[in-house]
C-alpha cells in the first residue's frame, strides 16, 4: 500500500508541477467508481454521466474549484471493485464518488475505512454500506427507509390493503427493503397476503406471480432491480393479472432496457426523489444538458451523481481541501464538513448525520405513457 501511495504522491507532484497555472485555483481529483459494463451497467453509466455533467458545469463556470474526474469500472463485482479502487488511488484520486451499487460499495468502503479514504455513494443504498464505517456517506435513501416510506405511501394514499411481496433473498438490497416494508405494513394495517422469493439465477417467475394472483393481492411490492422486475411484469401480463406494481429506486431504468415493451410498465409506481419531467428550473437545465450530451433521459442515479459532485465541492470548500492533499488528509476533514452542510440539489434538500445516512423527502412517481409522472 505504501508503495502505491508513494507512487500516487509522486505522480500527483509531477502532475501539479505540469499544470500549476494559477495559485488560487484548487483542483479536486474525484474518482467515480461504478459498473460501466456488466449487468448493472445502466446504473454505472448513469452515475458517470450525471457526474460528468456536474464536472463540466463547474469547470466551465471557472470558480475557485476545478475538478478532474477519474473513472474506474467495477462491473458490479465485489472482487473487481477492489482493483478499481486501487486504480483510482493510483491515478491520484483524493475522494471517491461511488460506488454505484451496494455490494461492491460495502467491500470498497471497508477498505477505504482502513486506508482513510472518503466515499460519497450516489446510489448504494443498503445499510451495510455505511454501517461501522465513518468514511462512507450516502446521497440516496438507505434500503430500510425505502421500505418504510413505500408502506407509508401505500397506506396514506389508500392504494389497497392486500399486498404481495416478491423479493430476491440472495441480495441485501432486496431483503433490506422487504424487512422494513413488512414491519411498517403491519403497523399500518396493510395485509401481506402473499410473499415469495427468488435468487439471482431465477428466470421463471410464474410461481411467484401465480401466488400473488391467487391470493388476490391488489398491490405487488417489488423491492428489486429492474431486470427481474421486467420479467415479473411480463409474466403478470401473460396471466392477465393487473395489480398496482410498486417498486423502489432499483426499478428506475426499466424504461431504458433495449427492446422492452414499455406498455408492460404502464401504471407501475416507484419511490424516487427525482423525476426527469419535473418543472423545477435546476432539473430542467440538468435534463436538457444530459439529453444533449448522451441522447437519453437521465434516471435518478444520474441525478444523484450530479448532486454528488456538488456535495463534494461544497464539503471540500467547508473542509478547506487543497489540490495537493492526500486522500488520508482529506478524509477526516471531509467527514466533519459534510455533517455541517446543507445541499440543495436536484434530488432535494439534503443533510447528513454521523451515521452517513442522508435526510430528504421521498416522492412517488407513476409510469404513464412510458414516462415518469409525479403523483403530487
Amino acid at each position: 500500500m505504501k508503495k502505491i501511495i508513494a507512487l500516487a504522491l509522486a505522480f500527483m507532484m509531477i502532475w501539479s508541477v505540469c499544470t500549476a497555472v494559477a495559485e488560487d485555483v484548487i483542483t479536486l481529483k474525484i474518482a467515480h467508481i461504478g459498473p460501466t459494463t456488466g449487468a448493472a451497467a445502466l446504473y454505472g453509466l448513469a452515475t458517470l454521466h450525471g457526474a460528468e455533467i456536474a464536472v463540466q458545469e463547474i469547470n466551465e463556470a471557472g470558480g475557485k474549484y476545478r475538478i478532474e474526474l477519474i473513472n474506474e469500472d467495477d462491473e458490479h463485482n465485489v472482487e473487481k471493485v477492489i482493483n478499481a479502487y486501487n486504480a483510482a488511488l493510483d491515478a491520484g484520486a483524493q475522494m471517491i464518488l461511488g460506488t454505484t451499487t451496494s455490494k461492491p460499495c460495502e467491500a470498497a468502503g471497508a477498505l477505504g475505512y482502513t486506508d482513510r479514504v472518503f466515499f460519497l455513494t450516489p446510489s448504494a443504498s443498503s445499510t451495510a454500506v455505511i454501517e461501522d464505517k465513518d468514511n462512507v456517506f450516502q446521497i440516496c435513501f438507505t434500503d430500510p427507509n425505502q421500505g418504510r416510506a413505500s408502506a407509508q405511501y401505500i397506506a396514506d394514499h389508500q392504494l389497497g390493503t392486500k399486498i404481495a411481496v416478491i423479493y430476491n433473498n440472495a441480495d441485501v438490497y432486496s431483503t433490506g427493503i422487504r424487512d422494513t416494508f413488512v414491519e411498517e405494513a403491519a403497523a399500518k394495517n396493510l395485509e401481506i397476503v402473499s410473499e415469495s422469493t427468488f435468487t439471482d439465477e431465477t428466470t421463471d417467475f410464474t410461481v411467484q406471480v401465480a401466488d400473488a394472483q391467487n391470493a388476490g393481492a391488489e398491490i405487488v411490492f417489488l423491492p428489486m432491480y429492474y431486470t427481474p422486475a421486467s420479467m415479473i411484469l411480463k409474466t403478470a401480463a401473460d396471466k392477465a393479472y393487473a395489480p398496482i406494481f410498486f417498486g423502489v429506486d432499483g426499478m428506475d431504468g426499466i424504461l431504458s432496457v433495449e427492446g422492452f415493451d414499455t406498455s408492460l410498465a404502464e401504471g407501475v409506481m416507484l419511490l424516487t426523489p427525482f423525476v426527469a419531467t419535473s418543472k423545477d428550473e435546476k432539473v430542467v437545465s440538468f435534463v436538457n444538458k444530459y439529453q444533449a450530451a448522451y441522447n437519453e433521459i437521465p434516471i435518478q442515479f444520474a441525478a444523484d451523481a450530479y448532486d454528488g459532485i456538488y456535495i463534494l465541492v461544497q464539503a471540500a470548500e467547508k473542509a478547506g481541501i487543497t489540490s495537493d492533499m492526500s486522500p488520508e488528509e482529506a478524509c477526516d476533514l471531509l467527514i466533519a464538513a459534510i455533517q455541517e452542510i446543507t445541499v440543495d440539489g436536484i434530488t432535494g434538500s439534503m443533510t447528513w448525520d454521523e451515521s452517513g445516512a442522508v435526510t430528504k423527502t421521498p416522492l412517488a412517481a407513476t409510469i404513464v405513457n412510458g414516462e415518469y409522472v409525479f403523483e403530487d
Partner: protein
Amino acid sequence: MIFLDNLINGLSLGSIYAIIALGYTMVYGIAKMLNFAHGDVIMIGAYVAFCGLQYWGLPPVLAIAVSMIACTVLGVTIEGLAYRPLRQAASLAVLITAIGMSYLLQNTALMIWGANPKSFPTTFINSVSIRLGRLNISIATLITIFANIVIMVSLTLFTAKTKMGKAMRCVSEDRGAAELMGINVNRTISVTFAIGSALAAIAGVLLCSSYPILQPTTGSMPGIKAFTAAVFGGIGSIPGAMLGGVLLGVIEIFGKAYISTELGDAIVFAVLIVVLLVKPTGLLGRPIREKV
C-alpha cells in the same frame, strides 16, 4: 385451478428444457462428448433473432430462420475447428475444450452486444392469451409445448427412417465398425451438430419469448438444467431427453409452488440424485453391459 396453472407453467418450462436437452443428448449419443457450449449457442441464437426483430425489422418467421441458419453455421464451425481435431484425444480434453468454447461464446457476445440486458421483443406472440375460466394460458406457452412435440416426433422419425438417421445410429453404436462399413463418421457428426444447433436457435427464441431478458449469460443456467434433464431421462436417448426435460420443468415448478421458492433448484437436483441412485443410466437409458 392453481394446480392446473402450475402444471401448464411446468410443461412450458419443461418443453424448453426438453428442446435444449435434445441438443445435448444427440451430440452425446453420437459423438460421445458433452458439448457444454450448447447453452451458449442458444444464447447466440436468441441474440441473432433479437437483432432480426429489433434492428433489421424482419418478420418473426424470417428472424427465426436467420437465427437457425446462423446457429447451424456456428455449430458446424465449432465442431470442425474445436472438436474434430480432438476426435482421438482423451474425453477429458474434449470436455475442457467444450467449456472453453462456452466462455469464448459468452465473451464474444459480451463484445458484440454489450453487457446491458436486452428485453426480447415478445409482442409478436404474446399479444393474446387464451382464457379458460380463471386460467390464462399465453400463446407463447402453447407454441412452446406444440413445438416440443413436433420436434420430438420429427427427430424420432428422422433417426428411424432416413439414411442419415440410420448412419447416426450406427455411429452411436460402434464408431469403428460404422467407419469400416463405409459410413462417413465426420460428416455424420457434423450433421448431428447442425441439427442440434438449429434446435438451439429454436430453443433460444422460445426461452426468450417466455423469459424475455437476454444477456450473455442467458444460456448458462438453462443449459445446465437441460443437461441435467438429458442425464435424468437417460443421456443419448431422444425420448429420454424429452421425458427428462418435461419432468424436470414440472418438478421445478411444483417444488417452487408447494415446497419452497428458494429450494426450487435444490429439489430438482435432489430428484436427479435419487433417480441416478435407483437407475444409474437415467429413466430411459440403455443399461450398460460390463465386459468382464
